[in-house]
């Protein structure tokens, strides 16, 4: 554990010393933004809309006390999704999607000697292959989280009005009351941290794959497992430190 953490730090270091030309890194980062960001919009949209909807319906179900105004439902949906569900659940979903594709992709490149081919050409393969993926994740996760925030609030709105558990007016009143802008900043800080964790851990697992196709599969699985655990631990630590 300690040893692999040390290796992980060395890996991150090797990536930023002896970088490739800026133009090369930039082009690669844009490519990766497409795979990591654009291709994840659909799944993030679906997940966050449903999470908003379910949160709304379940809070409505629990809030039966007539003394509490209905608009509290909207307020709670907003607080829960912005602060916790949008950044964390989105990152966990992305750990599954992006993490496994990073680890699988790099693992395959490693076992088919594509990484060696880069090295022989005198290219720093860690910097060429991994840095753009981490940068792209750090750029894309916050955008996806913003999308998730918006869509989960919309999901809650639709679910509330369709099931009749809360009127549109109450819901909107709820989501507009006592808004703390810092919560959004906090959520975005979380998403950047999660982005780094998911992409760096998955890249680390993939990059050092040894063996064959079986090991590539294992690398993907451990990448996703470790990323999710790291997300949850970091989530707790950030909440303890920043809130």
């Amino acid at each position: 554990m300690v040893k692999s953490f040390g290796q992980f730090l060395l890996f991150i270091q090797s990536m930023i010393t002896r970088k490739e030309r800026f133009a090369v890194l930039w082009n690669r980062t844009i490519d990766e933004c497409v795979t990591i960001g654009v291709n994840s919009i659909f799944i993030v949209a679906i997940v966050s809309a449903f999470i908003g909807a379910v949160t709304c319906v379940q809070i409505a179900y629990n809030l039966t006390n007539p003394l509490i105004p209905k608009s509290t439902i909207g307020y709670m949906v907003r607080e829960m999704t912005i602060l916790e569900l949008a950044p964390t659940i989105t990152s966990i979903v992305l750990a599954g999607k992006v993490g496994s594709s990073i680890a699988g992709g790099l693992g395959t490149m490693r076992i088919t000697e594509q990484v060696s081919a880069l090295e022989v050409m005198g290219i720093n393969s860690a910097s060429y292959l991994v840095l753009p993926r981490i940068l792209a994740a750090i750029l894309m996760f916050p955008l996806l989280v913003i999308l998730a925030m918006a869509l989960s609030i919309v999901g809650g709105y639709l679910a509330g009005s369709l099931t009749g558990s809360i009127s549109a007016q109450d819901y909107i009143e709820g989501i507009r009351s006592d808004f703390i802008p810092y919560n959004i900043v906090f959520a975005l800080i979380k998403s950047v941290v999660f982005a780094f964790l998911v992409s760096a851990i998955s890249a680390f697992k993939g990059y050092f794959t040894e063996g064959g196709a079986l090991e590539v599969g294992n690398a993907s699985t451990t990448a996703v497992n470790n990323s999710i655990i790291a997300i949850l631990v970091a989530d707790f630590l950030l909440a303890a430190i920043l809130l």
Partner: protein
Amino acid sequence: MIEVHNVQKSFDGNPVLKGITCTFETGKCNLLLGGSGTGKSVLLQCIVGLMQPDLGSITFDGTVYTNNKVQIRQEIRRKIGMLFQGSALFDSMTVAKNVEFPLQMLTPEMTRDERRDRVEFCLKRVGLENAGEKMPSEISGGMKKRVGIARAISANCTYLFCDEPNSGLDPLTSIKIDELIQEITQEYNITTVIITHDMNSVVQIGDHIIFLYKGLKLWDGTKDEILNAEVPELKEFIFSSSLVRAAKRIDDETHNGVTNL
């Protein structure tokens, strides 16, 4: 010329290379011959710098490569072209992009048109002028090796390394690959090192052959000398090929003992 001096390498206390000294000559096909697991690939990886030897040194045309400054190692690496055992094409890029890749990375001063011309030239050189737009998953194993060669030579390498260029190919295709490598070597006067355990390649392109056995160099010489070599391990290796046995018999009968393959 590449000089390898007393290179040793072991894994977890298991010696794989036990002090190898040899030279690879310019303008010639230098063959590394030996059975499975004798450390040919490890030696090649030490030479190109994918692995660090535990001991010993490697010199490229007089410049020491092992443990030298990063810049100097980088300089040498840029002159190295390598064909990997499994071709190692980048499977997210088309064939043409694969060949263009070293140019893009190593010679940023080249314009797009110059690069395109060079790619076209290299693909033509290996006989694949029509496959540029294909993806690596869409072409055959022999074609992949050709693309690998084209990629290795596209940035005008001075040193060409091939790890088993004809493993897994039919005899005819593998002869063609051998001929291609030989032609390129002579045409551009580069130093070529080829790993092989194929006797066909040995007798066809073996300008300089180095025989490895259990991590040691047991013999080196030319293709004309190899059939008369007096090293028992090498004899056993050569004459395990029934084709060579048959050829030698015919040859001995017709030339009355003077081998001239």
